[in-house]
């Protein structure tokens, strides 16, 4: 009888532990950050407080975006995510051109706010496709650069940070903030995109002011594959491990060149 009681207590404790764990991992809340009288930016927080926080500048907002889904999976790996909605405050739709036009001062305010708010020891910036622009803009700012230890670096997923369409026969022209960062950067690019041929040049440009830059190709996928509605079988397969892939890149930050 005593043994049964002990077993029952252990099972109850395990169940309680699992409930707490699941509850914290899937914890989500929305913060409001007032930039000025007219601008209030909402920041979606996914995951429980952890030693590593991720500020992800996403291309889209909405519960079912690939970014949010990935964050929910990664929360169990020990990350807390912050998704600032940089566009809704200005009544802008999430088009690539709008994302690239996000004011740098607002990006900086958001980053600074999250750095103060989080208890995480390290913060990672993530941005994909055109949403890599606010990441690059933020990293170029002296006030953000000053957080040498707290910001671990940035992961850019199939970044599109050109100033204009590439001309045949000419090197890509990147936004002016490229090459003004000092934090480590990892660039992930699809194997099935012409942009992969610009990776060596992008690496050189990004590292101009001290950033350690690593690049990697994702086999069999096109550019910004995770945002595409119609995915190829290889892209569907890549999505299965997208969370793991980003986790690995975060671990890589600053360790490879």
């Amino acid at each position, binding site marked *: 009888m005593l043994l049964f009681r002990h077993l029952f207590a252990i099972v109850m404790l395990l169940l309680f532990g699992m409930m707490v764990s699941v509850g914290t991992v899937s914890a989500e809340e929305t913060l409001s950050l007032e930039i000025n009288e007219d601008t209030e930016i909402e920041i979606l927080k996914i995951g429980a407080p952890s030693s590593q926080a991720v500020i992800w500048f996403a291309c889209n907002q909405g519960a079912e975006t690939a970014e949010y889904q990935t964050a929910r999976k990664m929360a169990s790996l020990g990350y807390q995510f912050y998704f600032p909605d940089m566009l809704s405050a200005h009544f802008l739709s999430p088009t690539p051109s709008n994302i690239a036009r996000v004011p740098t001062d607002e990006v900086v305010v958001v980053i600074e706010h999250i750095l103060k708010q989080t208890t995480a020891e390290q913060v990672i910036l993530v941005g994909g496709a055109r949403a890599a622009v606010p990441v690059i803009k933020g990293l170029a700012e002296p006030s953000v650069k000053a957080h040498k230890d707290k910001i671990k670096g940035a992961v850019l997923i199939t970044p599109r940070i050109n100033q204009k*369409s*590439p*001309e*045949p*026969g*000419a*090197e*890509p022209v990147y936004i002016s903030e490229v090459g003004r960062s000092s934090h480590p950067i990892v660039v992930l690019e699809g194997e*099935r*995109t*012409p*942009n992969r*041929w*610009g990776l060596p040049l992008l690496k050189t440009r990004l590292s101009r002011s001290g950033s350690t830059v690593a690049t990697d190709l994702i086999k069999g996928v*096109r550019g910004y594959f995770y945002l595409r509605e119609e995915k190829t079988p290889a892209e569907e397969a890549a999505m299965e491990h997208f969370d793991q892939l980003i986790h690995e890149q975060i671990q890589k930050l600053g360790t490879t060149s």
Partner: protein
Amino acid sequence: MMKKIYTLIIGLVLGLMSIALFAATGQLKPYQGKLTSPQINLQDLHGHRHQLDDYAGNIVLVQFWATYCTPCRKEMPSMNQLIKKMEGKPFKIVTVNMAESKQDVEQFIQQVPVDFPVLLDTEGATLNQWKVFAAPSNFILDKEGNIIFTLFGAIDWDSDDMVKKLSALTTL
């Protein structure tokens, strides 16, 4: 001596006129790259080696493309039509696939048959030399093999306008 100067001036005027003509389209742009003697030395799908010198004396459209590039797929039939419309004129099309496997390219060509050579740049060395970072990337070469114009993106290559302009180039 005077005859040489006269020929040079006429050549310059014709060259400038053709550049102005193409620049005005907003699509074909004068080449601004630094590649002075572009080279191609690649095999096609049948294993035949192609060099740019083989095309000397022709106006040549060199296109870099990829199977995953949807605009490339769409415009290729118009390139077949362009060849027909330019028949009898010193004009050739050569395309270079951007480092994909022969199997992938063959599969694509079965779906989109083409009437021009498809060369395989297996290691991407040629596209690196030509500075290609987007698909399709097009280069128009003069009869001496110099790149004179570029065009990024897909167009209707067999449009009357394009046929007229390319035909004009073949007469220079």
